[in-house]
């Protein structure tokens, strides 16, 4: 016993840089406070308290990220990297998270209710559910979203694979739950949750197995340690490549690359639209950040091992995403496939494996995140008696009925298609240029061709909205509260500004470029 005590004395207290970790800690702290709010604040005030808390925390964390800009260090005993790309992505995720919280806080669209269910435990259609006041909301969603947001911030900043795995789960678990909380179409929503959960757990297992093999190979799970081990190693590296491949499966699942994408359309369609927006934007950004860090820090020296594999996946992702989107009839599903295709375009930048690839991907992530969140925000506005009217045929002639909303949506679609003067063009240009420089020209050719296919279905929707006769009993466009309006405006503003003058942000992304090791 005394020996144990003596030995315990050997442990030097870990140093944790609370200041530099502040953005994440603020978000997690706010999530914990949110749990307490659930416990102690009366029902009537919970919603306001949660929304206020979440927004305050996000803004404070964003300020923290801005203050930290330019730092280049490793925190918390080497678990967390605090470098340019991490901060860039943290800032991006925070801004996207703010927009998502705004969408979640929207309550004026659906007869006083938000997109979230009033009481998740009440069976859909049951007397218990009908007894719920119409303005009741499952306010636990806000702390859950904050937990997910914290996970998204940590995911790309994790400097070792274990922290990355925990962050992956921290970001995933709340999202699994949030997916099942739709107020309308609960069956679809719950189905999405269960699909997302099971497949997510499945992919986590692959990630973990890869982690284990890499630990076996390198004796450490720190990315820099793995990088050191890959250099000048005479060991047979079957463990390394299999480990990397399985690790990649876990990451590629999160960023919905083919063939690990199949959850994407189902979950995007079934989840409540604000949650979909959060997932589509935030998860993708965070997962790409993590993938970039893994590949560029841990496996930069063995890029010849992973590049062929990523080539095939990128091509498959672009092609499948673009081609499958063509025949979709549900707007959310179409956007989901579009998100798959965009994952492919982003992978092109990742494969470039050079500085431009990193900065281009960072830029693209930001641009895509805001565009997609704006697009989903618009989807929440087009409604009929059954909630959101997501079937494409219902959008016929929307441009004649409400030109403003349809125009904004058309603009987002054009940005997704990568039309010049939108952020999408600048982003595509950045990653494709980087890929060409990185020697991946054929990939760029495929990228351009699939962009053309993708443009086809975006334009198809625009044509549908503006050049078809509106249906007689078409959906109405709900008047949003300032929350949704702000989210749409944020998306539009970023999309326009980055399209017209992308240079400042590109410069910022370039400055952010080097990863800390």
């Amino acid at each position, binding site marked *: 016993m005394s*020996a144990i005590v003596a*030995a*315990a004395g*050997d*442990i*030097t207290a*870990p140093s*944790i840089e609370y200041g530099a970790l502040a953005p994440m800690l603020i978000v*997690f702290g706010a*999530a*914990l406070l949110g*749990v307490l709010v*659930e416990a102690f604040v009366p*029902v009537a005030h919970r919603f306001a308290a949660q929304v206020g808390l979440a927004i305050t925390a996000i803004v404070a964390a964003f300020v923290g990220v801005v203050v930290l800009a330019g730092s280049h260090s490793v*925190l*918390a*005993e080497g*678990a967390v990297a605090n470098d340019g790309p991490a901060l860039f992505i943290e800032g991006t995720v925070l801004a996207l998270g703010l927009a998502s919280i705004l969408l979640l806080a929207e309550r004026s669209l659906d007869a006083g209710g938000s997109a979230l269910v009033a*009481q*998740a*435990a009440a*069976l*859909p*259609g049951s007397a*218990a559910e*009908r*007894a*719920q*006041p119409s303005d009741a909301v*499952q306010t*636990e*969603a806000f*702390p*859950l979203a904050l*937990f997910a947001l914290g*996970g998204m911030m940590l995911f790309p900043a994790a400097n070792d694979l*274990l*922290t990355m795995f*925990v*962050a992956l*789960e*921290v970001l995933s*678990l*709340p999202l*699994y*739950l949030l997916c*099942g909380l739709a107020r*309308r*179409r609960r*069956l679809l929503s719950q189905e999405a949750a269960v699909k997302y959960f099971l497949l997510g757990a499945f992919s986590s297992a692959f990630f973990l197995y890869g982690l284990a*093999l890499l630990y*076996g*190979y390198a004796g450490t799970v720190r990315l820099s340690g793995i990088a050191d081990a890959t250099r000048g190693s005479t060991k*047979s590296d*079957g*463990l*390394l490549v*299999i480990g990397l491949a399985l690790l990649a499966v876990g990451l590629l699942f999160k960023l919905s690359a083919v063939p690990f994408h199949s959850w994407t359309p189902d979950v995007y369609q079934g989840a409540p639209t604000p949650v979909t927006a959060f997932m589509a934007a935030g998860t993708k950004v965070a997962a790409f950040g993590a993938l970039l860090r893994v590949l560029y820090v841990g496996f930069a020296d063995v890029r010849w091992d992973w590049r062929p594999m990523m080539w095939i996946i990128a091509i498959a992702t672009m092609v499948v995403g673009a081609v499958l989107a063509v025949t979709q009839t549900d707007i959310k599903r179409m956007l989901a496939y579009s998100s798959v295709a965009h994952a492919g375009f982003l992978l092109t930048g990742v494969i470039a494996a050079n500085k431009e690839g990193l900065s281009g991907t960072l830029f693209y992530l930001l641009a895509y995140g805001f565009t997609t969140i704006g697009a989903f925000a618009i989807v929440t506005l087009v409604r009929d*008696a*059954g909630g959101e009217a997501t079937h494409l045929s219902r959008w016929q002639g929307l441009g004649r009925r409400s030109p403003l909303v349809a125009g904004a949506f058309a603009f987002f679609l054009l940005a997704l298609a990568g039309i010049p003067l939108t952020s999408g063009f600048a982003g595509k240009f950045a990653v494709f240029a980087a890929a060409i420089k990185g020697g991946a020209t054929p990939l760029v050719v495929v990228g351009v061709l699939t962009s053309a296919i993708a443009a086809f279905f975006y334009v198809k929707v625009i044509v549908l909205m503006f050049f078809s006769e509106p249906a007689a009993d078409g959906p109405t466009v709900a008047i949003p509260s300032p929350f949704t309006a702000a989210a749409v405006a944020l998306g539009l503003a970023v999309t326009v500004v980055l399209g017209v003058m992308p240079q400042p942000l590109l410069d910022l992304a370039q400055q952010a470029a080097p990863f800390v090791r």
Partner: protein
Amino acid sequence: MTSLTLNSLALAASHMSTAETVGFWILAPIALLGALGVIFARSAVHAGLLLGLVMLSLGVVYGVQDAQFLMFVQLIVYAGAVMSLFLFVLMLVGIDSSDSLVETLRAQRPLALLLGLGFAVLLVAGIADATTGTTSAGLEEANADGNVLGLAKLLFTRYVFAFELTSALLITAALGAMVLTHREKIGPKLTQKMMMQERVRGGRPSPLPGPGVFARSNAVGTPALLPDGTAASESVSPSVAQTLAGRGVESVVGRHPATIDAQPAPVEPESFEAESFQPETFEAEPFEWAPSSPESPPEPEPATTEEDA
């Protein structure tokens, strides 16, 4: 597993000791067969129990491999708590816990087996390629202060951030479970007096008829018959009706009593189907049921309770 064995195992430096070899050949078949049992056992409960077996045997393996702390965590937390939770939920969901043997997805089964086998071969080949001839460093040094202390040192230094982070995970889990299951009470708690008043005003002061009364069967799914021969729909608990409907079984509740008892009904039954026995499973809003795909015809569900009516 005695401490003696552990110590002797710990002495085995770079190669497996004989004891470990013996242990391997005992534990590995158990674990592997148990795992195969998990995926092939028809009953979910059996699968759960077999998984517990795998976990137990793995716990022993951890002990064999100088991971005493993990062994106990595995046994107590994993095999104990987690598996109990699984079994608990299985029991809760238990009514259709046995899987049908008919595979409805085309080529799913052979492909799954092929992939499983192929994946195992790939992994084994890769691992063998990498590790053959490597020697094991052993954990004597690392475990010098005892396994728990060594782990604690690591946990509170190098992995302290991840450790703190798991708190977020656990809170999420608790919060999530609560969100999905806890129902907040709306309105005041009913007193006995209020319940009595409600009952009197509700038009039926007397108790509901029990199911099966005057019917051919007294199963819970069979409604009682009223004096005029019609089915007393209230006699069947809504949850039973709902369950049957949810499983795609055409409930006898919703049927004309004539078809149940093969007797002509003297009085035209009221349209109770429309009112109280609309299964509450589904949303009130019009819902687009996608037509089931050709690969998956509705599963023929063996009727257990009501077909003998």
